[in-house]
């Protein structure tokens, strides 16, 4: 793998200005020429693709002729109906009852009645997935990173004990020791750490690799207000969120230098 594409989720991205940069070849590729909000290259977008979309693109900066304008409310409503029927994934989202705590994302319930947050996927045109899924149990198995996302844990949560447990036991322990709200709040913070920021801080979505044999993943990398603290989120190829944690400049540099390869000592 020598080519990596980096998608900026907050503001236009720019190529690294670094003649000595050892990863320059890659950088030339992972900073696309065109810049689009939410990291979406229109060339991936079916709406801009004559083969895959229902409409063709308009020439830049050109207003359609008057007779092409649609002013009829009925037509708008009809279009909206058609739009909403295009996505099976969106259709299948149940409209669940209210959660115990407010969350910033849509959600659905898993078979155990726990919420899975559906975080809009900024790279959906490329991956054909509308959402990243932040699952309750998966989050409960990663409580050791909760403080990184400013989720406080009670003093009787024994982290040494927790970290020595297998995944199933970690989930049980977290459910037993923590209020459900804590895990849902953690899910919500994870969702926010994978979402675009509107301001001076940036969020990137980048294809990467995990484990010894380089399984394909996606990473979101989000700046925080704390200097030297960046939140990195690992998303499995099918869109399920795996883990979010903070990294410092040293670690971030290593991961970036390694073409966004994480957990490289582990076997999947």
């Amino acid at each position: 793998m020598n080519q990596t594409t980096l998608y900026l989720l907050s503001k236009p991205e720019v190529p690294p200005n670094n003649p000595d940069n050892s990863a320059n070849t890659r950088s030339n590729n992972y900073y696309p020429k065109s810049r689009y909000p939410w990291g979406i290259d229109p060339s991936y977008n079916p709406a801009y693709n004559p083969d895959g979309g229902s409409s063709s693109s308009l020439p830049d900066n050109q207003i359609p002729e008057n007779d092409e304008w649609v002013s009829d409310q009925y037509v708008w409503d009809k279009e909206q109906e058609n739009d909403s029927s295009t996505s099976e994934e969106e259709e299948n989202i149940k409209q669940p009852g209210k959660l115990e705590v407010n969350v910033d994302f849509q959600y659905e319930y898993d078979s155990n009645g726990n919420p899975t947050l559906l975080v809009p996927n900024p790279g959906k045109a490329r991956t054909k997935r509308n959402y990243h899924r932040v699952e309750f149990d998966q989050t409960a198995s990663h409580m050791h990173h909760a403080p990184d996302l400013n989720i406080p844990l009670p003093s009787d949560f024994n982290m040494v004990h927790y970290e020595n447990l297998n995944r199933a036991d970690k989930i049980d322990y977290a459910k037993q020791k923590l209020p459900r709200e804590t895990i849902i709040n953690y899910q919500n913070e994870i969702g926010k750490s994978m979402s675009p920021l509107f301001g001076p801080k940036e969020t990137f979505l980048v294809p990467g690799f995990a484990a010894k044999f380089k399984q394909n993943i996606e990473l979101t990398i989000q700046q925080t207000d704390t200097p030297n603290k960046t939140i990195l989120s690992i998303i499995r190829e099918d869109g399920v969120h795996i883990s979010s944690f903070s990294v410092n400049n040293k670690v971030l540099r290593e991961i970036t230098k390694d073409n966004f390869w994480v957990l490289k000592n582990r076997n999947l």
Partner: protein
Amino acid sequence: MEKYSNLSRYKELLKLQENGEISFLDLELLSFKASVEQQLCYNRKKDYFILIDEYLSRIIPPYEFRSKFLQMEKEDSEKSTRILEDFQELEVFTLANDLEKFSDLIVQISTLCFEYDEVWDGTMEPMSESEFYYLVNNHYLQLGNFK
């Protein structure tokens, strides 16, 4: 030791980032920032070596080793944040000539410590303590020249 001679370039990169001309993932900028942290680790390499020695000699258990190692790194990281904001201090900050090689090996051990507890989605094979020991020992042997 050599002087932290590229302060002007660092300032330039910060300006470019501020203007949105480079991102925070720019490798040159990240390398500047990381080098301060690496040097702080280098400055107290004896402490790191003692800790690794204690683990390899089985004086301290693996969990304690991992958490202490990551804690020491966190301390270096916090200190580097303060230094990076203080240009006067950066002006006189020096980097070791063999810093890169040292850091490459230390970061391998640090990565092992961090990754050890990751469980992925349940499909990730757990890393055995003997494999962890072997890998730490392997990297540590290569650090022999820095003792």
